[in-house]
């Protein structure tokens, strides 16, 4: 489990690499270009920095980049890392009654491949088209179906947000006011909340990206409180290297997350600053969390 509070004391004695380091996971999207240049060397670097688990990105055409999925898993494990989660997007962005079977079939083969990769979690990071309450209903059905397919293979299926999920759409039977000043009532429903309600808790969990939640004008803590069992994993992300912007209060985020039982998280870094490699950014993030007193 990424970022889990699994004891590191025992392993610290046997594997010097892990000595004094916390169990922290990395979303490898953070260093796609620098990693794909040389995957075996890159995985070793991730391990050397101190990460213990990874969440994949880049699955396409039933392969991980140029590698067969089993080959890829071996490379990761040879580096001393464990694949615990993966991000994948189905081939359709707009769901219709006509394409749900195609999407379902795609999930079946994708789940098969991810069993081979050894993941515990399979996560969709791209938002399907949602403009109306009917869209939400269909998305809920498609998500539940994906969740069932994954569950049958022993994998948990989840959804990862950006900021667009925090836009509002009209409640059933209402029209959102438009035009300047048409503002006070009604305000509509938040898409993210509707996604929670349209999906089955036994089939679909949520991986909350705390940075994108803040960019969506929302407070992650409010959501932890509102959906304590649905949000099971976090993306720990900031403007660039963790802890350097003025936008995120990670101390409050970690404290609240632990208090409701969230123990799994992945670091993600997207905007690498000038004069910094992706690996340097990824290291900066690890060091921040490893040194932070509020991270277990």
């Amino acid at each position: 489990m990424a970022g889990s509070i699994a004891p590191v004391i025992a392993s610290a004695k046997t594997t010097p690499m892990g000595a004094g380091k916390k169990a922290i996971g990395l979303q490898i999207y953070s260093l796609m270009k620098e990693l794909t240049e040389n995957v075996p060397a890159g995985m070793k670097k991730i391990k050397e920095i101190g990460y213990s688990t990874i969440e994949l990105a880049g699955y396409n055409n039933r392969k991980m980049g140029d590698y067969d999925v089993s080959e890829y898993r071996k490379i990761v494990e040879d580096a001393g890392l464990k694949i615990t989660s993966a991000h994948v997007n189905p081939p359709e962005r707009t769901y219709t009654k006509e394409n749900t079977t195609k999407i379902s079939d795609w999930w079946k083969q994708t789940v098969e491949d991810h069993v081979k990769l050894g993941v515990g979690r399979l996560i969709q990071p791209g938002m399907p088209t949602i403009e109306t309450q009917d869209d939400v209903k269909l998305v809920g059905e498609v998500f539940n179906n994906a969740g069932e397919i994954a569950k049958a293979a022993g994998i948990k299926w989840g959804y990862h947000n950006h900021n667009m999920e925090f836009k509002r759409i009209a409640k059933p039977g209402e029209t959102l006011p438009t035009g300047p000043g048409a503002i006070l009532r009604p305000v509509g429903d938040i898409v993210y909340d509707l996604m929670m309600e349209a999906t089955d808790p036994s089939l679909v969990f949520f991986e909350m990206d705390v940075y994108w939640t803040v960019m969506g004008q929302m407070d992650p803590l409010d959501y932890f409180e509102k959906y304590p069992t649905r949000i099971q994993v976090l993306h720990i992300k900031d403007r660039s290297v963790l802890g350097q912007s003025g936008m995120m209060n990670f101390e409050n985020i970690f404290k609240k997350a632990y208090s409701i039982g969230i123990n799994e998280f992945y670091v993600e870094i997207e905007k690498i600053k000038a004069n910094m490699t992706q690996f340097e950014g990824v290291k900066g993030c690890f060091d921040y969390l490893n040194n932070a007193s509020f991270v277990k």
Partner: protein
Amino acid sequence: MKKSLVLCVVAVLALFSSSASFGAVNAKKHIGIATYSVKGLESNIEGAFKALADDGYVVMEISNYDANTGLVAGYKPTEYAALAKKYGMEIISSHARGKFDVKDVEGTLAAWGKVFDDHKIMGCKYVVFPMNIWSGTVEGLKAECDLMNKIGEEANKRGIKFGYHNHHIEFVNIPNTNQLYEDFLIANTDPDKVFFQMDVYWITVGGQDPVAYLKKYPTRFKLLHIKDEYVVGETGKINYEAIFNQFYKNGNTDWFVEMEAKMTKEQREQSMAMMNQMKNIQAQGGNMADFMANMMKNRPKDGQAPPPGFGPQDPKVQAEMLKTSLEGIKLSADFLLKSDFVK
């Protein structure tokens, strides 16, 4: 060279003074309160001031100066300043507005001249223009920036610094450009005449990083609004430590806690919807008059509660609002006083 030498001296002095005060139990932190935060203030001004002083606040930014009467909560400016002093606090800043019309420069400057005269009497160092809906064209904005510079000159004549306070509406692009309003305003106003007060909460809601802006414009942001959704430091937003560190590093000292009224979830949603509507207007280059007209048309109907802080001025309601807001304000003070990154 010269500049870096000065910076070094400042840094050394800062080190010295902080080590000198280390361990001094009674050394007061320089913490400020924007009294906009004190809802129902005018129902018991002295009681509120005493509570603020007890919380540990030492400086104030007021927002109840009335440009029409020249009075503050019905008091003459000198009397109001004396009232603050009675409780050991100093009014160093004010959110105030005069006429702002590029077609009437003379009238605008006369109005602000009066504002600055009254604030000079009060002993204010800063007067801050709290919010504007800006022109949606580059030419229009240039004229507004020129007017800001002229207002700043009027302030300088009286030994006052004139500034502008952001919300999130300044963090959208000017129509048909790739430039944010905030960047344009900073680039087109004279650093000697116009400074900026960064509201750290609203800039974040606008999707921009307070620390990056403090680094990008180290000399332009002279004041901060330290704000969160409600009590400072309670959400998953805002890295106050990084913000204070950069603000002090830039050589500044003055900032104010600002809080909205305590709201229900529904009230908060409506408040944010209203602010986002303003942001949309700014993004589309629309104008405030349309906004206000429609807002009046869409105002709460009978049986719907008005937003907190607005509506009936029943003394009992006022007293209750005051009690509630002072409780929140104390919690914000407690957070900042116990934070070792706050000087």
